[in-house]
């Protein structure tokens, strides 16, 4: 998955597990950038009575580097508070939740958002309401309008939302981790299965929890056009669980500094670039420490596996032993000018996994879900939009397509399969297998527990 359960430790801590990060110039408000960080992977919509929620004990952050040193210059911090209004019921709601302040809603969450820039901390909003989860037509009728009332306008011209959304990331999860199988190319696999199968979106009908901001470009950088973005979640260093034999207050004790437990910049970085033995360490480190992972980008394991898993399909990739400076540019430094005419999102030589966005490139009228590979400079890896087919883009890049782009066909010509492979649906249709909203927060209304599973 993009970053869902991507490391052993965080897989056991879903509330703090970042799953996807999106950053793009807002198509309907091009003077702003939308930042979206998703948490809590693979939410089954029918999760009652304890529906999913953010962690009151987690500090969520979206960091922005605007000077290329891979350190945060602007950070938006989110903290949550949960309130039970009726102490005498086991129910999430005791009647329809028709409005966001409905007395029928028993377990509700509020949040604060704080902008941090150097030593300056500005509370942009507090006691902001999250929407409830989408329970079903009796409990949360007219859910779309209910959730829309949880979009808040706060200080500095910023729009913010925190709550449940439909999963927007798509991947054939069951296939890709069955020895790298791509269903549409089953016959070419080392262990072939008969026929060609249609890809399956493994995250269909699942939800996530979304933190979304729409921020004026001037709030992110005063003078630079390229920013690097990552999200991280933190927990207190010490937690002592309550013990009813010893202490009757019933409250866990937490103390000490915030410790990073989850991180996400580019999709799939920790998932498929970093070895399993180092994934937990990677989650604890800041992007500026990513130099130690450079070798895994230069010589990715997946590039060595593809020619083995698909015998005879990737002979040119098998012969490509040079360090993959194309992947280093995409994932760790940004793409310098001079490689793709009229485009760059280079942040400097410091290798750091950040989602890089050139904010001077406006939204495309007819976007390609293949982003830059599809000739659309407003898409991944120039930031990332909700509909970008990042699995296919990264598969094709690792398979050698971007090495050819960087060095030219006279130096390296990628295998034909590098430009043809895909995961869920053939991207030549330019149609993502998920629906999205055309305006903030762009990710779709979550599936309801009543409707899913059908």
């Amino acid at each position, binding site marked *: 998955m993009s970053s869902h359960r991507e490391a052993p430790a965080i897989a056991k801590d879903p509330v703090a597990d970042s799953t996807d990060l999106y950053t793009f110039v807002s198509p309907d408000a091009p003077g702003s950038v939308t930042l979206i960080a998703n948490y809590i992977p693979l939410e089954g919509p029918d999760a009652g009575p304890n529906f999913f929620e953010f962690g009151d004990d987690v500090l969520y952050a979206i960091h922005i580097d605007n000077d290329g040193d891979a350190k945060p210059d602007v950070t938006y911090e989110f903290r949550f508070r949960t309130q039970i209004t009726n102490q005498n019921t086991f129910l999430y709601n005791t009647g329809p939740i028709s409005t966001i302040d409905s007395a029928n809603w028993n377990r509700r969450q509020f949040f604060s958002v704080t902008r941090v820039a150097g030593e300056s901390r500005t509370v942009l909003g507090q006691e902001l309401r999250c929407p409830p989860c989408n329970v079903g037509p009796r409990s949360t009728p007219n859910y779309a309008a209910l959730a829309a009332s949880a979009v808040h306008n706060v200080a500095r011209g910023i729009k913010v939302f925190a709550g449940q959304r439909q999963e927007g990331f798509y991947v054939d999860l069951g296939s890709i981790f069955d020895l790298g199988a791509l269903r549409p190319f089953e016959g070419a696999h080392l262990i072939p299965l008969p026929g060609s199968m249609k890809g399956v979106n493994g995250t269909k009908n699942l939800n996530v929890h979304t933190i979304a901001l729409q921020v004026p470009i001037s709030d992110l950088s005063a003078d630079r056009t390229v920013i690097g973005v990552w999200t991280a979640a933190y927990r*207190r*260093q*010490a937690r*002592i669980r309550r*013990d009813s034999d*010893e*202490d009757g207050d019933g409250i866990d*004790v*937490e*103390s*000490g*500094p*915030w410790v990073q437990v989850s991180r996400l910049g580019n999709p799939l970085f920790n998932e498929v670039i970093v070895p399993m033995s180092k994934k937990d360490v990677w989650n604890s480190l800041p992007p500026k420490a990513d130099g130690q992972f450079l070798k895994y980008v230069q010589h990715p394991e997946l590039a060595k596996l593809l020619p083995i898993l698909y015998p005879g399909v990737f002979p040119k990739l098998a012969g490509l032993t040079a360090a993959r400076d194309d992947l280093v540019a995409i994932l760790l430094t940004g793409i310098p000018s001079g490689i793709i005419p009229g485009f760059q999102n280079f942040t400097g030589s410091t290798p750091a996994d950040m989602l890089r966005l050139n904010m001077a490139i406006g939204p495309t009228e007819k976007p390609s879900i293949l982003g830059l590979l599809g000739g659309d400079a407003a898409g991944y890896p120039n930031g990332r939009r909700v509909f970008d087919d990042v699995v296919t883009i990264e598969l094709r890049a690792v398979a050698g397509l971007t090495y050819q782009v960087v060095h030219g066909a006279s130096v390296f010509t990628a295998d034909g399969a590098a430009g043809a492979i895909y995961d869920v649906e053939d991207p030549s249709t330019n149609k993502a297998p998920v629906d999205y909203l055309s305006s903030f927060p762009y990710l779709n209304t979550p599936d309801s527990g009543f409707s899913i599973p059908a």
Partner: protein
Amino acid sequence: MKDLTRRRFLTHSSIGVAIAGAIALVPGAAAALKLPVATSKAGAPKAIAGGPLVAHVRDLATGEIAFLVGSERLIVRDRELAVRLHAAAQR
């Protein structure tokens, strides 16, 4: 020390609170106690508010103790204190 449970010791230790509080709030106290200056993760000592305090004896041999209080981590090297804490925990 009949009522000294592990939890209460860790969270409300009068020894820990007194010493960590003295380090943070009283100028020169660290020197008077023959302790190296306690520093927070950020570097400079900071005032400690009320609330839980967790003491983590990280190395009994060197006396390195981490005090976790508020959002700070204060590192102290005091073998005598570390030994006293260790002994108290074994009662």
